[in-house]
């Protein structure tokens, strides 16, 4: 144990977040911006290996354990917390700011957890903190959405905890290592992780809950919950084949649902599932380059998705509107927000010179390298689809299309600064990827900017853009939602239970009446024979008793004689 590096990097942020409401606005601002930077510094103090061990019951906890992967995720979570806090400063409720920073602290706690017990503690803290972020929008919808959100996440937590108990019973060790799908316990752990990733069938919690958060809250939410799942899958289940197919499903689910969606922040929520699908697919492939691809894509994704959500949040904050059918033409009065949204949209589409280009292509490259033909063709189609649903659709319907007549100005200074910061990072990483490549889990032997790759990507994206504008008449937004798996627990379950109520009532009433009637008959019979006047309760004369004894003894004698 060596001094400062033995402090769990997430802990000051988590505890500091809880103290935030005690201070006035000035100190609060210093804490909200300072704590993430402190966390970043602490994360880089953690050397490779287990730094801190604490005996607990029969086990040994490792709350501070580091390697390249944990430092990479620790870094991006701290940066996301800083930018999220800057964006939310003085705009969000104190409880939301505190909960958002607590999310970051818990996520970083998971990142540096060397054992499964520490992991599950921070995992559950993240679930609680993120529920609070949704809830703190303080609307009826956000309250109900936050309750549905926590139910799903508690279910995920139970799956995870059950799996961990099974794993410890099987192996006797709580250390978090790579696991194979060779026992029910490991399947349960995988399921628990996948709930947080937004994998099917429980993916609907994400587009259900996130868009109900406040304009600033969704920026926090987008960064941590799904990406911590990517982190634990990278560490726990690399090369697990089923992840390839789950990832591909998520990619196309995200695209199709986003294409059908009208709410701008739900479009971006579906697009989170889509992007996490690319990462999960990369983890499933499991080679060094695909793992690097998944890890770096998580890093760049956190930045450009937060940027997209900041621009959408700015629009919502300034106009109070969130549906594409109510928006349009905002480029007139929100030039900075429009520019930042376009930079974010180009990054998510992996346009050359933006951050997505240097990360996502590693995953496709890995699929080709492993000769996974179908996977490669689907990933390529998925990349085209990203440009369709997020790259063009989001900026087009919000900032261009028809003129809605709305003329809100760009948002306040701190929101603008947060957007400029992340737009800068999107471009900087895209133009100069070396610093990111240097901190990836495996050595990088990949050159993104070759003539062929750039031309191929431009062809793919620009022709997707052409397809978008040709199909535009078919993409007219309608005030509709698209049913998802959550229909089963939001409509079918309650529907069936309310339909069953009269049936059960009927059954209950009639069985009760029948039962009481039979009970009455039984009691009557008993009373008849055993009651005070009953035949079996009468008093018997001594003489008749002696007579019966004599008869019985006589019969006995006869029986004995013969």
């Amino acid at each position: 144990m060596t001094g400062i590096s033995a402090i769990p990097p997430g802990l000051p942020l988590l505890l500091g977040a809880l103290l935030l409401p005690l201070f006035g606005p000035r100190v609060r601002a210093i804490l909200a911006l300072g704590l993430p930077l402190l966390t970043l510094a602490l994360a880089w103090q953690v050397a490779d290996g287990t730094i801190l061990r604490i005996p607990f019951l029969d086990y040994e906890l490792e709350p501070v354990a580091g390697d390249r992967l944990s430092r990479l995720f620790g870094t991006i979570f701290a940066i996301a917390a800083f930018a999220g806090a800057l964006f939310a400063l003085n705009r969000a409720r104190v409880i939301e700011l505190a909960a958002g920073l607590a999310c970051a602290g818990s996520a970083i706690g998971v990142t540096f957890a060397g054992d499964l017990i520490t992991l599950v503690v921070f995992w559950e803290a993240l679930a609680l903190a993120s529920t609070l972020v949704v809830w703190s929008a303080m609307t009826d919808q956000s309250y109900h959405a936050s309750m549905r959100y926590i139910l799903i996440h508690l279910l995920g937590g139970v799956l995870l905890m059950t799996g961990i108990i099974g794993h410890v019973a099987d192996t006797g060790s709580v250390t978090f290592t790579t696991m194979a799908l060779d026992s029910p316990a490991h399947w349960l752990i995988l399921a628990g992780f996948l709930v947080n990733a937004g994998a099917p069938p429980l993916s609907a919690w994400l587009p259900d809950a996130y868009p109900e958060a406040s304009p600033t809250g969704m920026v926090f939410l987008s960064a941590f919950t799904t990406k911590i799942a990517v982190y634990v899958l990278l560490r726990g289940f690399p090369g697990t084949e089923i992840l390839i197919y789950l990832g591909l499903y998520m990619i196309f689910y995200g695209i199709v649902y986003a294409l059908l969606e009208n709410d701008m922040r739900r479009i971006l929520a579906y697009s989170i599932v889509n992007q996490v699908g690319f990462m999960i697919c990369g983890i499933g492939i499991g080679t060094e380059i695909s793992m690097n691809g998944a890890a770096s894509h998580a890093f760049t994704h956190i930045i450009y998705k937060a940027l997209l959500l900041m621009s959408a949040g700015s629009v919502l904050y300034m106009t109070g509107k969130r549906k594409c059918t109510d928006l349009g033409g905002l480029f007139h009065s929100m030039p900075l927000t429009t520019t930042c949204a376009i930079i974010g949209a180009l990054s998510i589409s992996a346009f050359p010179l933006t951050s997505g280009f240097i990360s996502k292509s590693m995953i496709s490259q890995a699929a080709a390298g492993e000769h996974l033909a179908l996977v490669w063709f689907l990933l390529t189609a998925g990349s085209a689809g990203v440009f369709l649903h997020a790259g063009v659709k989001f900026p087009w319907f919000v900032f261009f299309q028809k003129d809605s007549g709305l003329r809100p100005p760009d948002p306040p200074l701190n929101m603008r600064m947060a957007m400029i910061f992340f737009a800068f990072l999107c471009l900087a990483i895209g133009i100069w990827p070396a610093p990111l490549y240097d901190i990836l889990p495996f050595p990088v032997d990949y050159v993104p900017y070759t003539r062929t790759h750039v031309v191929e990507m431009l062809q793919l994206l620009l022709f997707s853009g052409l397809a978008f504008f040709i199909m535009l008449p078919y993409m007219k937004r309608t005030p509709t939602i698209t049913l998802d798996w959550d229909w089963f627990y939001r409509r079918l379950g309650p529907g069936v239970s309310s339909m069953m109520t009269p049936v059960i009532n009927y059954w209950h009433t009639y069985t009760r009446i029948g039962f009481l009637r039979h009970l009455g008959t039984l009691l009557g019979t008993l009373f008849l024979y055993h009651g005070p006047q009953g035949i079996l309760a009468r008093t018997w004369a001594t003489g008749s008793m002696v007579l019966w004894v004599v008869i019985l003894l006589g019969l006995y004698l006869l029986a004995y004689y013969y």
Partner: protein
Amino acid sequence: MKQHWLVRPGTIRLLWAVFLCVLALTVLASLITDVHAWFWLDGTFAFNAWYGFATCIGMVVFAKLIGRLLHRKDTYYDRN
């Protein structure tokens, strides 16, 4: 009200012309790339161009079909 230059019909026509030129250029650029086909289909001429276009049309059509089945009014869940 004076129209913003970006939404004038003339500008939009110009933007389409530029866009189509750029598209043509990217297709022509296929001639100068070293095609390294991993599978046979991706070795076809300007593969990414036609494949991106075709799959996008496919995805929009597929989404429309799914939408027919699964679209509901956005107040669907409000009547709780």
